[in-house]
């Protein structure tokens, strides 16, 4: 119920954080909002030697638009994304996902970057980032890397982040095309992890065809899944019922769910299909309704 003892430090500058990380590596845990880390510490599933609190570091929080990207500081809280209503019409899927993460109290503290790096296969942001084609800026004492979301999530709680790195920013490309998206989550109650969730982000060309589609699946695999076959099937297509139904079917097949107390694998796969189908319809309707 309480963590084992650890050392604690709250550096005021990013450089110090990076220097500590290269010094301690796997013996350290980075603390952002703490809403994933602290429960692990309390259950003693994690017992770091040192906890590095990045709460005082400047420049890693906030949402802004720049050069065709929406840039989200890694330490931005879920509740701030919830309230970024000017993202409506640009990144609907983020606005729809944010309020569904855990519960309102957790959202007041938990951060987007923290959640992405924690990489719970049932964590909502993973599927969203895959759907919108996000890139993650990660820094170490040795420099900076920019990692695409696709491929970042390797397994349960395992990502491409090295132990001496910290994520500083999430960058999402936003073009000028008409876009729409949504996030659908099957949860047994508020605060539960997803049983199944799907993130959909669609961009329509001027010709009304689907220029690109992003589909992320949550809680139906060892990590968040990008439904690439479904996405490819939609690219260049008219957004008809049939095209959407086929994409949904492919998305269902991309899922690799495990049977557990929440349901059979067959159930979860089918809900993923149903959600992608419903989500695509909503995404297309929104994109079509969007101002040019």
């Amino acid at each position, binding site marked *: 119920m309480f963590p084992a003892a650890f050392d604690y430090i709250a550096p005021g500058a990013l450089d110090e954080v990076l220097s500590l990380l290269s010094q301690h590596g796997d013996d350290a845990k980075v603390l952002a909002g703490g809403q994933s880390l602290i429960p692990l510490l309390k259950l003693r599933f994690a017992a770091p030697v040192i906890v590095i609190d990045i709460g005082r570091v400047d420049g890693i929080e906030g949402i802004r638009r720049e050069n065709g990207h929406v840039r989200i500081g890694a330490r931005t809280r879920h*509740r701030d994304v919830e309230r970024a209503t000017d993202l409506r019409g640009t990144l609907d899927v983020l606005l729809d996902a944010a309020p569904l993460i855990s519960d309102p109290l957790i959202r007041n503290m938990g951060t987007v970057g923290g959640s992405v790096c924690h990489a719970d296969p049932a964590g909502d942001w993973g599927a969203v980032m895959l759907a919108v084609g996000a890139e993650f800026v990660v820094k170490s004492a040795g420099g900076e890397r920019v990692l695409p979301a696709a491929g970042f999530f390797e397994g349960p709680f395992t990502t491409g982040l090295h132990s001496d790195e910290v994520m500083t920013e999430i960058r999402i490309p936003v073009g000028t095309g008409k876009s729409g998206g949504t996030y659908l989550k099957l949860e047994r109650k508020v605060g539960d992890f997803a049983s199944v969730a799907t993130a959909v982000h669609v961009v329509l060309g001027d010709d009304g065809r689907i220029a690109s589609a992003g589909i992320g699946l949550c809680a139906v695999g060892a990590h968040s899944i990008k439904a690439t076959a479904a996405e490819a099937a939609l690219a260049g297509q008219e957004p008809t019922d049939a095209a959407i139904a086929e994409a949904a079917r492919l998305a269902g097949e991309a899922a690799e769910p495990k049977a557990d107390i929440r349901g059979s694998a067959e159930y979860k796969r089918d809900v993923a299909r149903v959600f992608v189908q419903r989500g695509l319809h909503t995404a297309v309707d929104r994109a079509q309704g969007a101002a040019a």
Partner: protein
Amino acid sequence: MKVTFEINGAEKSVDVEPRTLVVDLIRTKLGMTGTHIGCDTSNCGACTVLLDGRPVKSCTLLAPMLEGRKVTTVEGLAKGGKLDAIQVGFHEEHGLQCGFCTPGMMLVGKALIEANPHPTEDEIRWGISGNICRCTGYMNIVKAIQHAAAANATENTAGVA
């Protein structure tokens, strides 16, 4: 390590292990037992406090995270012997039975109506969805928060000619 923060308007400096959960700091170190512990997986909200005005789970905060910040607990609601509107609402509308979830519920309710002075019932239910109550079935908690919102509105318009 030393942690310095403000709690219910008063500055406090305590010496604690970094691993100390804020709920334990409040209950054990400061002897303020109005904040409660109901679970061990951050699911129930009985430990809710306001951190810089925002409701958070104090069981999922480490003591050092309070450095330089302002905490409000249930003990800080009444001012100079006068009950906060949220406390009046809970009493008038029978919004509590065993009282164990009540401190957390009141703080969430207060923060909710401060951010959203005229919430719908759905907004209230959504806003308190991180706080479990086993006794009331939530119906009267919703009424209590509505009561407080209405009282605030009356007070705010009272000075208007």
